[in-house]
């Protein structure tokens, strides 16, 4: 019997003829029950084909995105937009967010897309209803930042900051704080550029005064923007750092100390080793008494020790986080993540914790190969960033074995500088690949 027929073979075939009716517990026959149940499930009405096709369309978009088929995704998107006219108001209201997420993803990657297209799209999506204005504005600004358009990003954030609609809800408040904080971060950037310029100027220079005045203005606005956010529990490292730097520059040592102490010791904040390091650094700069320094350091080390002790377990957590990060399309080219994943994988397998890797890999093995390790990506990664390609190839080799296309592609590339690295990679894969651990 060939493979094909085996596909059809089933263990038992006898005495399996269909029961005529739905049997209830007492053996009574309720033939109508099945139909009744079916209709109730969809709220008494048959689902419209419109609803059925739009949800099918959504899954086609998701699949296309997964396979990086931006063209197809755009094609389906064209049809999916109809959902904005759905007569079901629930679906209609949920749609803008879905469209924004998928659409921005498509426009981010599509070869024919441009900055202008993205901007128009974002502006349109912001104004569909009022629910998404702030969120989309913030993401739009981040997109602009990504493309180095600081001024546009700043303008965007300012616009979002002044936008008002209805009551201030708590979720809105967080968003507004974030928007302001990012604006503050941008201002900090200009400020620190100005600081650089100032440091190059002579104090007697006539320009010095205006420049310093300028800086002062900036810092004032910035601190207002930043301080609201860092009151809220959370991990705000970049914001805290820049805020403290500015406070220190203008001699507000008390303010800076308060911020840092709060950031490090407030119970409501998640435990964050960086917070202690910042505080220690600040105290050292301030020439604080030795005892105090030591106490801070002790605490910091203590925390680090705990981290250390739990290192093995942390490896597991690390793997989890890294895999999770790389699930996002926006992070596919993040070299740090790949580097760490390669490192962690090697270490975990060296420590013979194959199960940990498999636990993470099982849910991903049916889509990561297409998502990350396709031939297309091998080629484009190698073109764009050879180190990234090497790291990814190592991961691909470990997870998928020597036969995987990504690994094979990178392996056969001839590169003078990376020769050693590739050789190492081959060795590691041979040693640790989870596909055929026997070899």
């Amino acid at each position, binding site marked *: 019997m060939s493979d*094909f027929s085996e596909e059809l073979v089933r263990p038992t075939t006898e005495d*399996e003829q*269909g*029961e005529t009716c739905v049997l209830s517990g007492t053996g009574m026959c309720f*033939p109508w029950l099945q139909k009744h149940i079916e209709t109730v499930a969809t709220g008494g009405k048959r689902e419209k084909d419109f609803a059925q096709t739009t949800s099918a369309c959504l899954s086609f978009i998701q699949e296309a995105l997964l396979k990086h088929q931006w063209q197809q995704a755009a094609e389906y998107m064209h049809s999916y937009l109809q959902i904005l*006219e759905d007569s079901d108001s629930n679906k209609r209201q949920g749609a803008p967010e879905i469209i924004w997420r998928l659409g921005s993803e498509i426009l981010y990657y599509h070869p024919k897309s441009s900055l202008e297209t993205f901007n128009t799209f974002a502006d349109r999506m912001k104004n569909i209803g009022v629910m998404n204005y702030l969120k989309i504005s913030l993401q739009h600004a981040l997109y602009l930042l990504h493309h180095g358009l600081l001024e546009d990003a700043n303008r965007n954030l300012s616009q979002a900051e002044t936008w008002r609609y209805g009551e201030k809800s708590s979720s809105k408040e967080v968003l507004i704080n974030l928007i302001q904080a990012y604006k503050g971060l941008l201002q900090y950037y200009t400020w620190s550029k100005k600081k650089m310029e100032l440091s190059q100027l002579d104090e007697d220079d006539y320009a010095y005064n205006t420049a310093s005045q300028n800086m002062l203005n900036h810092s004032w606005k910035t601190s207002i923007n930043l301080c609201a956010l860092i009151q809220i529990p959370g991990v705000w490292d970049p914001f805290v750092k820049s805020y403290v730097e500015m406070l220190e520059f203008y001699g507000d040592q008390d303010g800076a100390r308060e911020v840092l102490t709060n950031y490090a010791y407030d119970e409501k904040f998640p435990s964050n080793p960086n917070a202690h390091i910042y505080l220690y650094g600040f105290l050292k700069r301030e020439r604080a008494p030795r005892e105090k320094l030591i106490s801070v350091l002790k605490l910091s080390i203590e925390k680090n020790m705990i981290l250390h002790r739990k290192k093995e377990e942390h490896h597991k957590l690390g793997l989890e986080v890294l895999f999770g990060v790389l699930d996002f399309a926006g992070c596919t080219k993040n070299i740090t993540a790949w580097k760490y994943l390669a490192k962690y994988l090697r270490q975990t397998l060296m420590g013979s914790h194959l199960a940990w890797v498999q636990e993470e890999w099982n849910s991903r093995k049916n889509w990561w190969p297409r998502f990350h390790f396709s031939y297309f990506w091998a080629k484009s990664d190698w073109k764009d960033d050879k180190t990234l390609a090497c790291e990814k190839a190592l991961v691909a080799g470990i997870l998928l074995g020597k036969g995987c296309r990504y690994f094979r592609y990178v392996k056969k590339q001839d590169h003078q500088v990376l020769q050693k690295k590739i050789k190492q990679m081959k060795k590691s894969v041979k040693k640790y690949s989870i596909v055929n651990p026997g070899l």
Partner: protein
Amino acid sequence: MDLEEAKEFKERCTQCAAVSWGLTDEGKYYCTSCHNVTERSKEVVNTEAIPNTKIQAINRGLKRKQKLEKGWDWYVCEGFQHILCQQADALQTLGVGPELKNEVLHNFWKRYLQKSKQAYCKNPVYTTGRKTAVLEDNPSHSDCDSAPELLSDFSCPSFVESGAESQPDGHARKPFSIIKAPQSEMASICSGSLDGVEYSLRKEKGIVKMSMPRTLAFCYLSLLWQRETVTLSDLLRFVEEEYIPYIHAFQQFPEEMKLYGRDKGIFAIESWPNYEDIYKKVIEVATFLDLPRFPDITEDCYLHPNILCMKYLMEVNLPDEMRDLTCQVVKVTGIGEVGFLTFDPVAKKTETVKYDVQAVAVIIVVLKLLFLLDDNLEWSLSSIAEKYNEDNKEDKPWFDFRKWYQVMKKAIDEKKQKWEEARAKYIWKSEKPLYHSAIDKPVVHKRREMVVNLQKQFSALVDSTPAVEKKSPSSFQFNWTEEDSDRTCFHGHSLQGVLKKKGQSLMTKNSLYWLSTQKFCKSYCKHVTTYEESNFSLSYRFVLNLFSFLLRIKTSFLHEEVSLIEKRLFKKKYNNKTKKKSSKSRKVRRH
């Protein structure tokens, strides 16, 4: 739209810097490109136009009051008439004879109007109370006559004329404005048609109300009357493939037939027709119209199981030789007899033959007779055939079930994938948005505009390669030719491997059979059987899925039909109430 009125406002939008303003209901300006609503309202800005203010104010005053569009006066039944007319035209372009439209459908429709007391009767519904007659010779009305062409057929008196004739004192009641005025006052309940609101509320006992699915019931009844070569599943597939106007049919109304409010629920639908539903409606309509016995379905008719079986055998790439067996089954079961096949709404009210489903069920029964389809015998028979074909390359090849499965599985999967993709891309919404009420209108228009703009953006990203040319409609979905090596054609293969000679006749080698259903409900519910997929063999499921996809019906529906054929075929078994797995050898005569 109020875009015209907003032209004098020239400032740039604060959000997107465009100068493209519309007016909201409150008279405020909103940007049509980003939907930003300003605080500025019409009145304030307009001070510069002092000399004309009065006139403009008057103008606007009038316009404001009349938020709803004003077009021709038309009735819901005219709308359906227009759609039926479009559908009949489409059928004609598909190759159906012109009599279908001019005589059959026309007569059915007249009969419907009469039975539902809308026209051709002494007391049309519209004359009761304050309502006016249906089709008065209103001046604005005559323009729209060009549309319902059904009327212009010279052999029958024109619809409008006869409508007037049947109402001797028609001229006395024609004040359309009387109904129209109070309606537009109640802004939330309205309709573009004169009787849309009443129509949607009408619930009379014994009256079958017209609906979009029922237009297809009318089409099918006319096709059946004419004994055309179109089955119900073909008709519905043509609807889905847009050869026959349905989902977007109302968009073809003349410009002046405005459609909104309650009309939306009547004419704009968001589902494709469903076989079971339309089948029920066919019977319902035929009964309501009190139609006489339909022309006989004889052996030379397309709808006769012998011919349909041949057609479907070709469609699914099975050997022509199976035809003898299907004919045999048809004969034994008696489903090929004129009395059984011919539709007679008055005599047997609740049933008509589902010609296509039945033919397909016969083929499935024959496959079961030959191969048992128990996930076992079909494969061993295939191995024998495979071996024979290898050894005798010159001979007519034996039919190899496994090979057939491989070819069909691939073909059907591809077809299904394409079908699903096409469905997912289907554009339901019309270019002109439909709104429920005056309050709704600007919102709906804005939403539409937004969608169009976004769609433009994404279609710009799609390759401009012209879409695959639409293939011409065909009752065949597959095309099997001898040449294609990848898609072997099995039409010429022989069944020798599965038949054996016994005296003068041929018998199936397989002497076993299993019944799809052991018992039938004896209660009044007529419920035949529930199809629980996991209870059946995989090859049976494959065959069932294959055919139900071709007909676009539910697998359980087809399974039911198979059970019914088996019930006729193995009458004795069922009468004896044998509950054990039945086995039966069947003689098959060769002609």
